């Protein structure tokens, strides 16, 4: 029999994987990996703030992520530094700031490893509720903005000319990302959130022929990674968050291996009728 805590870990982990994958696809398509890193690393700063104010950690992390996301969008619009270097700089500064802030708070005992790498095995029923209620909301909004957001990803001006409002959708997407980071932090930790967002999506790319398919495949691969990672961590007594990421990485490696080429080659391709 599986222990209760292990079942809760599976349920929580799969919930996060399901919510993360459609967002992860956009992070891959829009090359927002550094952006995701910056937001998730800044989450540690949110943790420090929550401990200082004795406020709800999830909500505080969400607030800090939103603030950082807005600040980043603003900076990107006017900064002379390339977006890439700017984010690279901020991603790691945010992490360092969070660590320093936590170190200053000598009066609280913090499970730093838990925040950095996640502690899915301690997921409570309350955590699961937050993940599934929040996740259902995130997915509903994603469904709503999916087509225009994808259109603006393919070509922003084309989408805008044809009635899409890319600026509005960008803001909505940032808010969703901040929400997912706040929800996922406890499960995989701030260092590994981006990995859980990106790796399943990247692994799904090879097999997908459309954006919707890619999101569904990424969700499946993400869930499978959670299962494989957690059972692996049980078997070999490895840390749970990193194990999930390692499992996802294995799926990615399989997807780029010659083995996967066999599958994709058999897929119906363009029919050339010489018209």
């Amino acid at each position, binding site marked *: 029999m599986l222990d209760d805590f292990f079942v809760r870990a599976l349920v929580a982990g799969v919930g996060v994987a399901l919510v993360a994958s459609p967002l992860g696809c956009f992070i*891959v*398509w829009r090359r927002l990996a550094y952006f995701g890193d910056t937001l998730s690393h800044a989450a540690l700063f949110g943790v420090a703030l929550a401990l200082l104010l004795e406020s709800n950690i999830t909500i505080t992390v969400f607030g800090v992520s939103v603030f950082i996301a807005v600040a980043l969008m603003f900076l990107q619009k006017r900064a002379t530094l390339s977006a890439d270097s700017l984010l690279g700089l901020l991603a790691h500064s945010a992490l360092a700031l969070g660590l320093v802030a936590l170190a200053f708070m000598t009066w609280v005992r913090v499970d730093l490893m838990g925040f950095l790498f996640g502690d899915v095995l301690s997921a409570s029923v309350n955590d699961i509720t937050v993940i599934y209620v929040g996740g259902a909301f995130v997915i509903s909004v994603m469904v709503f903005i999916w*087509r*225009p957001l*994808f*259109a603006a*990803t*393919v*070509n922003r*001006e*084309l*989408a*805008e*000319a*044809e*009635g*899409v409002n890319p600026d509005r959708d960008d803001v909505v997407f940032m808010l969703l990302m901040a929400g997912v980071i706040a929800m996922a932090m406890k499960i995989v930790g701030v260092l590994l959130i981006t990995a859980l967002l990106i790796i399943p999506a990247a692994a799904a*790319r090879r097999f*997908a*022929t*459309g*954006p919707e*398919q*890619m999101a569904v495949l990424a969700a499946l691969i993400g869930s499978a990674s959670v299962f494989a990672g957690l059972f692996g961590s049980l078997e070999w007594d490895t840390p749970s968050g990193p194990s999930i990421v390692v499992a996802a990485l294995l799926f990615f490696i399989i997807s780029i291996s010659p083995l996967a080429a066999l599958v994709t080659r058999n897929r*119906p*391709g*363009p*029919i*050339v*009728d*010489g*018209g």
Partner: protein
Amino acid sequence: MLENSGSLTRLRNAGINRGGRWLIRGVDMDVERGQIVTLIGPNGSGKSTTAKMALGLVAPDEGNVNLRDRLCVGYVPQKVSVDWTLPLTVSRFMALTGRIPRRQIDEALAVTGVSHLRNAEVRTLSGGEFQRAMLARAIARKPDLLVLDEPVQGVDFNGEILIYELIKSIRDDLRCGVLLISHDLHVVMAATDQVVCLNGHVCCSGPPVDVASSDAYRELFGTRATPTLAVYEHTHDHAHLPDGRVRHADGTITDHCHPDDSHHHAPEISEKTGAADVG
């Protein structure tokens, strides 16, 4: 007012300034329902910028642009590159900015001659094939305003004639306005109502010359192309020098050529100009 005038998009003395430089200035242009307006001019003359202004994608830094509300727009940008990370087939591309009935998609793919590529990944298409797919996507929407930025790039001569015939028949079917950008300075679609010649400003504008009756042109274009293509004869009161300066009709030379310098109010001298004058 705009409703009555029939203009889908209207530019008045519109200009875009970036970093202190006017990319384009003083554009007056109307695209009305059922009308085809062709923008021509050398590379970098501000054609794409003008089209983006007409579409409301960039706000004018001077003058004004009126784009009618709630227009259904079909836009084919000059350059669309689809990243390899994006899984996108032609049929999904067709529904990029909105759901479209399957029958409309089929029709659009058929008239542009890319039905057989329906399941192909967009990034595997050749330049000409992708251009047709983009045109198919834009017309499948049954737009009120169709904006085509160099739609025949990468398409061979026969394909070009076909696409021009297609644009005309779409205009006739949908009664939509068409803003067409062409790289050719002298040969335009015969169905064009108004040619606007740009080079940082409007150099000249007017309808193209009907060439169907001219034996010389028939020889040049071939009998098939003659009813489709027309010649545009420029009437410039100034010339753009290779260094970017402008020589006016009165012989003076200025750094720029803008509506607010007095030269443009000099009496117009009509002359048939060659490529060198335009470029």
